[in-house]
Structure formats: structure tokens, C-alpha cells
């Protein structure tokens, strides 16, 4: 039996008396592109925060490549090969695009807390950072402070920072949120390119993106996974239509997220 890239068993999370995640089981094999969908407030972002170590679980087990990561800090989980992006852009605003990406490759190339290397003499970090910047299409903006980029550019940088360290499990939290149709198409292309050969888990509201990218889809409703299946089967699943897709049409697809 091959180990899954991610394996969640009976994961639960409560804030006070409010149960947000109520026993999630999920098995994502290596190399799969997996989307998590569900109505607002279903707990998608919370689930990401549990997997990436931002919040501790209340109970349950999360295994990354067969190794338990519950109770680990975010940086420990990151070093084991899981990297994530954020729904609200989370970059180093005062640093240039190049410095943003270089910061994201330092640990993975083994420079740790070094104060005896001169950054500009580290060819490997420079090459790797340049490669990532080119792959996200920001080569012409490498010297610009990240805080001065446009929203779409910042979102691309966000993805660049996420993949730069070479993690093999990538979590993307609403990568196309707030984007125009043409920008969305570009981002989908970008995601496809930079996550080739990796395991991708993403939370996404845009159904076009989800059905275009995902190998399999999980539907999260009120903290529980009600279905995990291929896009076709999910589309045909009456329970999903009732709980989510139907509701979506009533509320409009862009409802509720800024």
C-alpha cells in the first residue's frame, strides 16, 4: 500500500463550545489535485489552518507522507514538505519581489539561521529565486517592493512564495479570490504549471476553476465531508446539489467573499 500525501482521520476542532470541524476523514494520494468546496462557514479555511499547523486540532490525526504532524508548529510542518498560501495576501510588504522569494527558498537550501554567509554570494538561492520569479511571470518586477504590486501580481507572488521552498504538498487557499475572468484564467494556468508533479489541495469558490483543475473534489458542509469523488460524480451527486451547488445558484456564485 502506498502512503498518502495527506491523511486526515476523524479531525475535530472546536472554538469554545462551537464545533467547526466535526470529524473529517480525507485521504489524498501523492500527485493528486484535490479541491475542497463548500458553502461559506463550512470550515474550509479552518481545515487548512489545522493541516498547516496554524491552529492546533481538538482531536484526531493528520499524517503528511505517513508522518503524524498534529501538534507541530507551522515551521516544522513546512520543513516536512507542506507549504500553503493564504486567502488574504500574506507577503513581506517592504521587501522586493526578489527578496520575498529568496526568503522563501533559504531554509530549503539549508542556510537556516546563517549569519556567516553573504546572501549575494549564494548562487543557488539566487538561481532558484530567479527561476520561481520567472515561472510566476514577475521577472520584470523583481526589484519592486511587494507592497507596491497590483492585487493580481501580489496573488501570483503569494503562490510563488508558497512553491519556492520546493514543498511537495501545496495548499492553496482561494487562489483566484477577487480576480477578473482573464486574471483567473492566468492563475489557473500558473497553478497547473508550478504544481506539476506535486500534490495540490485547494479551497476555491470559482466552480470553473475547481472543475477545470481538480482530479477529485471533497464537499465540506458544516464541518463534515459529505462526499469525496471525481468532478463528474460530484456534479451528479444529489446530496451535494442539495447542500451546496443548489444553494450556490440561489445566492449567486460570488456571494460572501471579498
Amino acid at each position, binding site marked *: 500500500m502506498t502512503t498518502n500525501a495527506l491523511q486526515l482521520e476523524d479531525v475535530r476542532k472546536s472554538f469554545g463550545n462551537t464545533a467547526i470541524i466535526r470529524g473529517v476523514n480525507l485521504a489524498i494520494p501523492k500527485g493528486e489535485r484535490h479541491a475542497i468546496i463548500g458553502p461559506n462557514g463550512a470550515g474550509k479555511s479552518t481545515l487548512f489552518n489545522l493541516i*498547516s499547523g*496554524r491552529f492546533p486540532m481538538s482531536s484526531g490525526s493528520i499524517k503528511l507522507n505517513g508522518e503524524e504532524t498534529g501538534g507541530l*508548529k*507551522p*515551521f516544522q510542518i*513546512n*520543513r516536512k514538505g507542506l*507549504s*500553503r498560501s*493564504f486567502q488574504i495576501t*500574506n*507577503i*513581506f*510588504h*517592504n*521587501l522586493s519581489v526578489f*527578496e520575498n522569494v*529568496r*526568503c*522563501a527558498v*533559504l*531554509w*530549503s537550501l539549508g*542556510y*537556516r*539561521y*546563517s*549569519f*556567516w*554567509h*553573504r*546572501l*549575494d554570494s*549564494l548562487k543557488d538561492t539566487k538561481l532558484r529565486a530567479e527561476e520561481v520569479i520567472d515561472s510566476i511571470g514577475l*521577472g*520584470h*518586477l*523583481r*526589484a*519592486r517592493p511587494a507592497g507596491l504590486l497590483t492585487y493580481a501580481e501580489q496573488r501570483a507572488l503569494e503562490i510563488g*512564495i508558497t512553491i*519556492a*521552498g520546493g514543498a511537495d504538498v501545496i495548499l492553496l487557499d482561494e487562489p483566484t479570490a477577487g480576480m477578473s475572468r482573464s486574471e483567473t484564467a492566468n492563475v489557473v494556468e500558473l497553478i497547473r504549471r508550478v504544481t506539476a508533479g506535486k500534490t495540490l489541495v485547494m479551497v476555491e469558490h470559482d466552480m470553473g476553476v475547481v472543475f477545470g483543475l481538480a482530479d477529485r473534489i471533497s464537499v465540506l458542509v458544516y464541518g463534515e465531508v459529505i462526499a469525496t469523488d471525481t468532478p463528474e460524480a460530484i456534479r451528479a451527486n444529489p446530496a451535494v446539489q442539495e447542500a451546496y451547488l443548489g444553494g450556490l445558484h440561489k445566492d449567486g456564485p460570488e456571494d460572501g467573499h471579498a
Partner: protein
Amino acid sequence: MAATLRYRPLNLARWVIWGTTALIMAVLPIFFTQGFAITLMSQMGVAIIFTLSYNMLLGQSGMLSFGHAVYSGLGAYFAVHALNMASKGQLWVPVSLLPLVGGLAGAVFGVLFGYVTTKRAGTTFAMITLGIGELVFSCSLMFPDFFGGEGGVTTNRVFGKPFLGVTFGPAVQVYYLIAFWCLVSMALMYAWAHTPLGRMANAVRDNPERAEFVGYDTQKVRWYTLIISAFFAGIAGALGVINFEIVTAENVSAVRSGGVLLAAFIGGVGFFFGPIIGACVFVYFVVALSDHTKAWLLYLGMFFMLMVMFAPGGIASLIMMQVQLVARQRFGRIWRHYLAAGASSLLVLAAVILTVEMTYKVSVDSSGGTLMKLFGVEFDAAAAGPWAVAIGLWIVGGWLFNVTRKRVSQVYGEIQAEFQQGRP
């Protein structure tokens, strides 16, 4: 455009800048030969190291510390004891290497205290540093054997045989020792800012959460940075020992910690050279101005307030704004307005000085009569005439300054708008 930026010429510029700095430090005592000037420059050298080490925390890593004097002060205490032991022959350490003793002591306490303080960032960090500062200060009164009690610990920097004629007796020899350590420390702290740890300190300052998600333990980044910063603070402390030959509880006090915060802010925490300027200005205020007027602390406070309100980026950011204007050939359009604003601000300054000095004379210093001398003019501070002049200066200066200041910001705004539209 940006992608084709070349870095080679910058490296050359770097050598020129460091070479010029070294040259200036070397020739300064030739032009300023009075004992007072030498002492002033020595103190500036010490303050530069201390303020730069402080800015490793504040500007580079976003850690607002209210207790940085703990590290320079404890470094100073260990250095003074090492010096006393060395002069008795109990320890081998030449005066020229004494700063290393202070630096190591500072770093050791950085390891100890830093482990506690850097557990948290932001306001919590600031509060804990305040607490540790008070703790160490109260210890200095509780353990008089080590801290010397009220009188402090005294020493003599001259002992043993002179080495190549150098005894460190004359102040100018001490100046060169301080200048050497100042230059080395500046270069090392500059280099630190361009290492992986230094860059991640910037990243942790900007966005600690993101730093965690690219594999970095932010507490460790802060802790290691603080240890290195404490090392340089200790070097500054030990150089202060050589300069003054005395260490008192004041060296670890909150006043000293607050002073370095002021110096860093005045100079500007956003640029590497900001704290260097800030340290020089601060020392000038403390040493030179205190010789001229009893109200020097009031002037320092007002200056600090003005800087925080109108130039929160400090002197360094004001300089960089002009560099941008010069580089893009707009300075010719604005310098006349600067001149006008500068002249009218001198009127306001005269009004401030006249008011402050007369108030001091009348309220604090009137036992010997109220006659006083200011700018070479003798007058009676209790008479109505000088006060009328002061009020006149306030009104005219204030009005002129307001007009000229608005003109400057208008022209500056126009130029910035042109930059925004992408004109060359």
C-alpha cells in the same frame, strides 16, 4: 527597466563609501585638536555602535526594546572588572581587546534575557524588556560588590608597558581605538543585514506569520538577532569604560535605554546609516548643548517631538528624499523654497530659544539678578521689552514658516505627482 538593474557599480560605490568613512575618521583629530572635540568624537563613536546595535532590533527586526542599556551596561561592568584585574596582573587582556570582553558579556546576557524576551513580539516584547531593564537596574543597587553601589566602579586604562608607544593615556589614542572598533562594528553590522539571518529578520519584521510558513521559527530569528545585537552593545559599553574610566548604575538605567531609542528615531530606523546620524546628533545634544544651556533636555525633547511628528522616517529619510530629487533633476525647482522655509524656521527657533532661556532665567536662575546674555546681547529677562521681541518673533516667524512650509510641501507634491505619472 528594473530587471536590467546592475549591481556591480553599487559594489564599487560601497568601497568608496567605506573608504571615505575610514578616511574621515582618521583625519578628524587633525582638524579638531581641542580636548573637548576629541572627547565629543569619542563619545559619538561609542554611541554609533550602540545605536546601530539597537537598530538591529528596532529597524531591522521590528523589536521595540526599552531595555537595551542592559546589554551595553553589563558589558561595561564586566569590562571594567576585567580591566582592573588586568592592571593587577590577574588576567591577560590588553586594553585594545577589552571591547571583546564587553561584547562577550553582552552576548551571554543576550542569550539569557533574550530567551525570555523574544518569546513574544510587539508590545509584549517591549513590556518584558522594560521589566528586565528595571530588574537589572535594581540588581545594581542590591549587589554593591559587583556594581560598585552609588559611586560605581572606577578604573585606570593606563597600565603595564607601552606597546609601540601607545599607552591609551592621551585622549587622542582612545579616540583612534574607538574609531577602529566603530569602523569594524559598522562593517560587521552592515554585513549582518545581508546574511540569511539578517534578511529573515526583515521578513519577520514585515510578516512573522508568513516567515513561519516558509520554514522559520520566528522566535529563534528574534533570539539570535538579539544575541548579536547585545554583542555589539557590549562592545560599545566596554569602549565607554575605556573612555570614561568609570561605570555606574546609570549605564544600565532606563534613561540610557530611552536615549538610544531617541537617537535611533532621530536618525531614522529605515536606513542603515540613519542611526549613525542619530547617534552623532544625540551626543551633540547631550554633550555640547548641555555646556551652553541648562534647558538642553527640553530642546532635545522638542526636537524629538518635531521629528516624530513631521519626519517620522528621521533625518535619513529626509536625506533620501533629497537624493531622489537630485538624481531625477528636480532639486533645482525646490531648493529656493527650502531656503525660505529654513530662514523662517530660524526665526521660530530664535523665538523658542528666547522664550525658554528667559523663562529659565526668571523662574530658576534669578538669584543673581535677571540680567542675561544671549546671542551676544545683554538684557533684563524681567523687563517687558525682550518678551515683546519674543512674542513678535513667534508671530512673524510662525506666520512666515507656515506659508513657506506649505509652499515646500506643495512643490514637493507636484514633483511626486510627476514621478507617479512616470515622467523621467
